[in-house]
């Protein structure tokens, strides 16, 4: 893999999207930025604009209001891009499984690269999930990384 691909894996900028979650996953993700966990060690930064982002972190069950908005955000992300689903709600809708308002889990709306289960997942689990994603991408040939 080329130097530019290596640089991509060493400097993932993260955009955080909460699709109506109960805030627990959001708090656990924000813990990753605190001195105890500090994801800037791995070059990850939290950015405020989707145009700057490499990774889209989604927390919460995807409801009817959010589906078109998630699709728009995903289309606005410059390629190459990654999506990380955090928490039981984003993975499988959790307790909202039979709700009238949550027709689809996240991976039926946009392609998801990493699933991090837990209600909420611990910050260590989030970091370990993203690091596993990096390890996985390191082994792949360039063509598979659209």
């Amino acid at each position, binding site marked *: 893999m080329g130097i530019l*691909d290596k640089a991509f894996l060493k400097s993932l900028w993260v955009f955080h999207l909460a699709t109506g979650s109960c805030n627990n996953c959001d708090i656990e993700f924000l813990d990753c930025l605190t001195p105890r966990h500090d994801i800037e*060690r791995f070059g990850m930064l939290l950015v405020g604009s989707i145009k700057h982002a490499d990774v889209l972190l989604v927390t919460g069950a995807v409801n009817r209001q959010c589906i078109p908005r998630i699709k728009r955000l995903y289309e606005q992300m410059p390629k190459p891009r990654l999506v990380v689903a955090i928490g039981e709600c984003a993975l499988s809708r959790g307790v909202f499984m039979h709700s009238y308002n949550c027709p689809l889990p996240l991976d039926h709306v946009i392609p998801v690269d990493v699933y991090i289960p837990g209600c909420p997942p611990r910050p260590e689990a989030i970091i370990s999930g993203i690091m596993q994603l990096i390890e996985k991408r390191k082994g792949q040939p360039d063509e598979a990384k659209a």
Partner: protein
Amino acid sequence: MIYILYLFFFGFLLTAVIGLFGSWIDRKLTARLQYRVGPPLLQPLFDILKLLKKETLVPFGASKATFLAAPMIGLVSVMVVSTVLWVNNVDSQNTFMGDLIVVVYFLLVPSISIIMGGFASGNPLASLGASRELKLILSYELPFILAVLVAVIHADFSLRLGDILATQAKNGVIAVSWSGGLALLITMICMQGKLALVPFDTPEAETEIAHGVLIEYSGPLLAVYRLMKNMLFFALPFFIIIIYLGGLRGHGLHLLYGALEYVGIVALITVIRNTNPRLRIDQVLRFFWGPMTVLAIIAVLLALGNY
């Protein structure tokens, strides 16, 4: 031929390398001040390399030519500034009349390019950021130019950087005199505004307007903007070192002093930006046109009285 060497080796390559290193010091020190570990040494370089590979998105409704040209204008102007500064620093007699004015003028162009990019992107938040950047320029330019005038007065009203350096080589650095020290303080605070760092980062306030002016930029264009900012992170402290601290000299112990001066200025910038809250734009204007301008006028009067 020698000028091309100056432009690409000193103006671009060396400035970029030192600027990237300076921005690493800034991020690492920020992390240490917050009891974090912080990024590795090559992190600013990785950020730029990564952005080169990413897709460029031009927003619908943006004025395309200006949107694409604005980052280049900023980068080229920083290259010109650092070339003039390096030429003066390496060979202080090989300069032209009025290069100080050229440097002050071209140091403004990066901010203008950010304003152009912000307005061209057609995003309401970017427009808001760009109009704030415009007001920020209006605020800090007045005390900045008055403070630069102090160095001019010390060098017998010469507008050549070479003469300012020669005066300092003869009579000692300007910063140790009363007027020089005051002017150095004012320029440091104006530099914080020029780099758009906290407390004067109103144009790109993350929490209010989500990076403001740069919100629509992605991929290589954002890389150019980041490189421009990193190079400015060297060019501005270098300008201060030249006009108040006698320039960088490249042999023996002087090299160590020069490095310490640069790292010290960067550390000061970082500590200021980590221990202050963000000001509103009207507070910025009042701060620069009030106390800062009064202090700058006092510094000019002291310099005229040979203090």
